[in-house]
């Protein structure tokens, strides 16, 4: 039996629509496809001179970043604005809110200001889940990255990138390279690839950066690039944080680059038309060679632009689901 760490009910309405977006795990192929299709429609809209749609007009979106981020926050902000929402950005240092009480107080205050959606990034795994379940269930919560757990919008923009370049998922081999242990992106990507039907998902990493029993998520583990990259259609490299060298997980950046850095001599083992992806920001010469990052296989900048469309899709879908659910809860209370 498939192991389930999170039941999907929390993020869905009674009709199965998205009302929060906390994790990819447990969602249906149909729902993920709906997100991709909706995002596609927003991409074509981006070509037009007026980029705004009124889907979130009159709604207030609060970007709650308990952990620093520039790129993700900016794309969320742009996405919300293109949906005509009012946007508030709050950068709250993690140290000031390490106590649960402070986090609760912050959220309750924002709820009292009639916010409609929280986009949450937090250093603790499960933070977005906690807020959706126990703090402000009537506000749509979008997880913008929680600890090592999940980064579902990043995973979905990666899926969109793959679909737009490879057509479908049914016959693909996808390799994820680098620090899987600390990566919320990798976990969400694995769930998404699995649900969308990718038959061959590979992890290429030294054992120090490999999460316990990651195989149970449906991946094959490789320690060596040459074997892991053989014949793949998609190569996803992950960012390597500097502090991994301090905690005895790796000897040096140099050694990591030699063994796991994506360079031309390794990429040649992948299919000739393989695409190369990276969630950013890139450490050139550490996990990826500049020639590859800027080369013909790279779709890294496409990922960034698709990020806005995917976030627009998720935000509009969750807001619609949350509004429906809240109304039906309200009707039920009125009738009882």
């Amino acid at each position, binding site marked *: 039996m498939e192991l389930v760490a999170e039941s999907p009910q929390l993020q869905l309405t009674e009709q199965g629509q998205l009302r929060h977006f906390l994790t990819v795990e447990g969602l249906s192929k149909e729902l993920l496809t709906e997100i991709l299709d909706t995002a596609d429609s927003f991409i074509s809209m981006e070509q037009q001179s007026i980029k705004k749609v009124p889907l979130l007009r009159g709604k207030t979106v609060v970007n709650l970043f308990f952990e620093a981020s520039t790129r993700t926050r900016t794309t969320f902000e742009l996405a919300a604005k293109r949906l005509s929402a009012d946007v508030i950005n709050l950068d709250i240092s993690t140290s000031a809110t390490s106590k*649960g009480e402070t986090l609760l107080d912050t959220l309750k205050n924002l709820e009292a200001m009639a916010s409609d959606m929280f986009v949450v990034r937090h250093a603790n795994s*499960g933070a977005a889940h906690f807020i959706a379940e126990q703090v402000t269930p009537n506000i749509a919560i979008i997880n913008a990255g929680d600890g090592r*757990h999940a980064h579902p919008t990043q995973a979905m923009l990666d899926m969109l990138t793959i679909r737009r370049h490879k057509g479908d998922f049914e016959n693909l081999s996808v390799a994820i390279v680098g620090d899987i242990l600390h990566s919320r992106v990798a976990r969400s990507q694995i769930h998404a690839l699995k649900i969308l039907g990718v038959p061959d998902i590979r992890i290429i990493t030294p054992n120090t950066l490999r999460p316990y029993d990651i195989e149970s998520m449906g991946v094959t583990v490789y320690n060596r690039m040459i074997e892991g990259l053989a014949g793949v259609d998609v190569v996803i490299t992950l960012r390597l944080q500097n502090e991994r060298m301090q905690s005895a997980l790796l000897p040096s950046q140099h050694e990591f680059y030699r063994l796991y850095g994506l360079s031309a001599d390794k990429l040649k083992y992948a299919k000739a038309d393989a695409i190369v992806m990276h969630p950013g920001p890139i450490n050139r010469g550490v996990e990826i060679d500049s020639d590859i990052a800027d080369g013909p296989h790279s779709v890294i900048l496409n990922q960034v632009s698709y990020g806005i469309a995917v976030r627009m899709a998720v935000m509009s879908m969750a807001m619609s689901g949350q509004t429906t659910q809240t109304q039906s809860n309200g009707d039920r209370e009125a009738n009882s």
Partner: protein
Amino acid sequence: MSLWIRGGRLIDPANNIDTVTDLHVRDGKVAAIGSCTDNDAPAIDATGLIVCPGLVDLSVSLRKQQKNSISRETRAAAAGGITSVCCQPNSSPVIDSASVATLLQDLARQGGFCNVWPIGALTQGLAGSQLSEMGALKDAGCISMSNLRAPFENTRVLLRCLEYAASYDVTVFFNAVEHALADDGCVHEGPYATRLGLKGIPETAETVALTRDLLLIEQTGVRAHFGQLSCARSVELIANAQAKGLAVTADVAIHHLFGTDADIQNFNSLNHIQPPLRTETDRLALQQGVQEGIISAICSHHQPHEMADKMAPFAATEPGISGLDTLLPQALKLVASQLMSLEELIARLTIGPARAANLKAGSLGVGDIADICIFDSNKNWQVSPSTLHSSGHNTPLMGSNLTGRVQHTLLAGRRVHPPRG
């Protein structure tokens, strides 16, 4: 003062008794066992009920050394049929001086619901660097010394602690944990930790420390007890040590006999405990260890928290489960599932822990102190804020139905549950 307990099924594993009989309590002690002929004597009708020694709980956290807090939690113990609790030294303040140990017992006596036996800190402030005044702590009533899960500065400090403890016949309670391996993990290192992105604590964090500790115990000859084993291999290590003749005993927290790492699904912080809930294999091995007597005690590992302490993302919540109220009915499930007899189970809740801690408790022989638990093994009840006596409502059992409810608890012959008045 004289009281008869009439018609109950007396189960007293320490004296190998399991029979329907009357029990006579006089002046706080067991005066006689056998039929009562005086129909007018003050009596408790225990027909259809189990009469056993009051339970002995080796691991209870009282958190704050304040009169109302101690009174509330010892009241919960009495309601759970527990008449002796061993109090963890990590209270505020830490039990590392005779005066703190004495104060704790004074406050507990004023409440009067249950015996509270302090466990002294093995090192000053539990800081792991300097020996505590074990002689004074022992004289002040500490039944053992422990550093709990706090780290030692190095293995030499641990060795000195054990040598010193052995000099004064001090029992040392161990919670085996190798900190460098546990790191700041919060759940079992397994597939659930991987999926939820929570930092795992490998099984070896316990077994590596346990192996080292057993070697040091052998070297120093100290009398030792291991608290809250969490994995199958620990049971095996303890069994091997016992087979070699080493004087070691062990207990398990009730949660580890029923929970696994699957219970952290959906980031359920009510199942955030230390050591963490592990696999189904581990759970079954712990049950078997209890059945075979390798693990001679089951404890509540009671850690009452305010709900605010659980209202945060998983890793930021306080670990621990409130367990005094539910220890006995939970444990009775082991009998219902035919893993062991009721007599064997009661041994693990009474004489087993009493012997591990060298307590004069857990036995109802004539002349013994009349600490008595009388319970209905068939009574159903629902765990709810109104049925719990502890201030801690942090239990994953909230809302569930349990079978087995304490009807009367006597402390030295005096009724402490239900309270008079």
